[in-house]
């Protein structure tokens, strides 16, 4: 019924005792996600959520005692890179980093390190994942989506909610919704998720929500054209954005012609993707 997270997810929450960590752990547990433990250095031995979830000082010990297979990170930006590495070092195979504002140099080093082992990182600066009816890992409001056969992958947070709500309004549900995050260097790309949706027997259609900047959408278009059999609809945010006040030439030389909404839409259309003019149009494109 899903990709990446489901009923068998055993979730660890890093930064569980913080303001955001606590609030969203509560929401995840209420949704039915199996939260097995939390980590906050210095708070090991405590229990949270009315004594239901044990807190540990380190991921290593939490893994030994409670056996999580997935970790979600609410640690502040200064400690986020370290938290990701700690989870990877302890053997967690799926790490979701919600934290926004992580320095890009930190992420480049983390990504290089993770690429050498079999760990999947989603985010940072992402809303996480939602497999409706089974598990919610992150901050996507659970009530806005119902189970179904549409796979959703997005670079944006709130724009994803907009699309999920529009789908629900039309009676459509989703298999899994994956927010990959909007940072320049992240763990999982559109192509990675599209590949999973293509292989998932319960996903029949895919919605992709992109935005200006980078060339991830162009790469995805190439993948869709050559490797995908399932229909894809997309929305690209930032069509009206003015060009940034740029300084220096290096960015322009590296990015060349890619990055703008026009180029992304052209590449996706050429790959057979239906493009929505605005998010509320997506259900119609999927139904047609």
């Amino acid at each position, binding site marked *: 019924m899903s990709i990446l997270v489901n009923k068998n997810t055993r979730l660890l929450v890093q930064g569980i005792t913080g303001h*955001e960590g606590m609030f*969203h752990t509560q929401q995840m547990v209420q949704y039915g996600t199996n939260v097995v433990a939390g980590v906050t250095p210095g708070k090991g031995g405590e229990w949270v959520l009315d004594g239901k979830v044990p807190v540990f000082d380190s991921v290593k010990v939490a893994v030994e005692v409670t056996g999580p297979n997935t970790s979600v990170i609410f640690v502040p*930006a*200064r400690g986020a890179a370290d938290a990701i590495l700690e989870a990877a070092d302890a053997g967690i195979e799926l790490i979701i980093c919600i934290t*926004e*504002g*992580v*320095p*890009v*140099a930190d992420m*480049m*080093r983390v*990504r*290089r*390190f993770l690429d050498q082992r079999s760990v999947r990182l989603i985010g940072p600066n992402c*809303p996480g994942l939602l497999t409706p009816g089974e598990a919610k890992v992150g*901050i996507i*409001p659970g009530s*806005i989506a119902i189970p179904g056969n549409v796979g959703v992958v*997005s*670079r*944006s*947070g*709130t*724009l*994803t*909610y*907009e699309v999920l*709500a529009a789908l629900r309004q039309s009676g459509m549900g989703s298999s899994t919704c994956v927010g990959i995050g*909007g940072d*320049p*260097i992240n763990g999982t790309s559109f192509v990675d998720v599209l590949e999973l949706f293509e292989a998932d027997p319960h996903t029949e259609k895919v919605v992709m*929500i992109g*935005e*200006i900047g*980078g*060339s*991830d959408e162009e*790469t995805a278009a190439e993948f869709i054209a050559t490797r995908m059999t399932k229909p894809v609809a997309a*929305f690209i*945010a*930032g*069509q*009206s*954005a*003015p060009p940034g*006040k*740029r*300084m*220096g*030439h*290096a*960015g*322009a*030389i*590296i990015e*060349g012609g890619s990055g703008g909404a026009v180029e992304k839409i052209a590449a996706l259309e050429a790959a057979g993707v239906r493009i929505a003019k*605005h*998010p*509320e149009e997506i259900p119609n494109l999927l139904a047609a």
Partner: protein
Amino acid sequence: MKLHEYQSKSIFARYGVPIPRGRVAGIATEAKQIAEELGGRVIVKSQVLVGGRGKAGGIRLAKTPQEAEELATHILGMEIKGLKVRKVLIDEAVTIVKEIYLGITNDRAQRCPVMMASSEGGMEIEEVARKTPEKILKVAIDPLLGLRDFQARDLAVSMDLPKEHWKVFVNIAQGLWKAYQENDGTLAEINPLVITADNRLLALDGKMVIDDNALYRHLDLTETRDQDEEAPSEVEARKYGLSFIKLDGEIGCMVNGAGLAMATMDIIKLLGGTPANFLDIGGGASSEKVAAALRIILADRNVKAVLINIFGGITRGDEVARGILTAIQEVKPRVPMIVRLVGTNAEEGRRLLANSNLVTAETLVDAARKAIAISKGG
């Protein structure tokens, strides 16, 4: 955060990159004095955070200290692409034999920093990149290993730099890389790096951009942030952790999340209206933030209507509603406001707003239509 040329070059110099002798001046008499110290012939360079200074007449050669003072007087009164010149850099003038380009930035596709070099340095480097991309040489830098000497040497060899300069070039490349890495740069650029008539390599110009997310570990740099170079509204927005970009349209926008904020602007434009700004109040926005956002939007006299579009996730609708109410009391908006509130605690939020004088909307399209009609006097 962008750094001025004089700031960038002084950072480069700390890492062993040779730069011309020179100092920055805020008044013309100071420029004269610096020129005298440097021996007469100097370049007077406007310090503004925008490209194309040379073409705008903001970089001039002075043959005497007297001329340096006159040029400084002239340049200090200039505006370049809307930015007022408040400082000039007075650098010793050197005779240029060759101009090289050397820069580092992050390549998203390769997920690592890339160093670029070209024997065709100078003002037309982007043109060179477009027309003759083979003349731009690139090496990917492993973020765990850093720039290796052989990579820098490869660049020197490939651009046919005379052998006698290889060693110094490698040192400059390493210096630029260390300046980039240790200061969390997202751009570090020397254009041009010149060979002088007396056969030295010298960084004549320098640019640096620092990753805003990493500024917490570079507090020395934050103190030098030049607020004069930014729109006052953008400075104010940053104080409250809001991400704001001013545009020229009539509909003020307050949205949570960058993607949704862009989509809101897109739909306004698609349906025939014009957005006055991009404003992302971020996740978990407090009522204080919301009030600040509204003040910033309404300070723009072009705004004829305000569209507030909140899809609560981390952000809670009731908190946003309280923020709106506080802001209305405080700011007394002179234009109609259209509010669309959905997601986390949205019902509570809508209840709080029920008695205020706001136009409500159910969907994004509905909200945009209403805002456009109002902005056009409908």
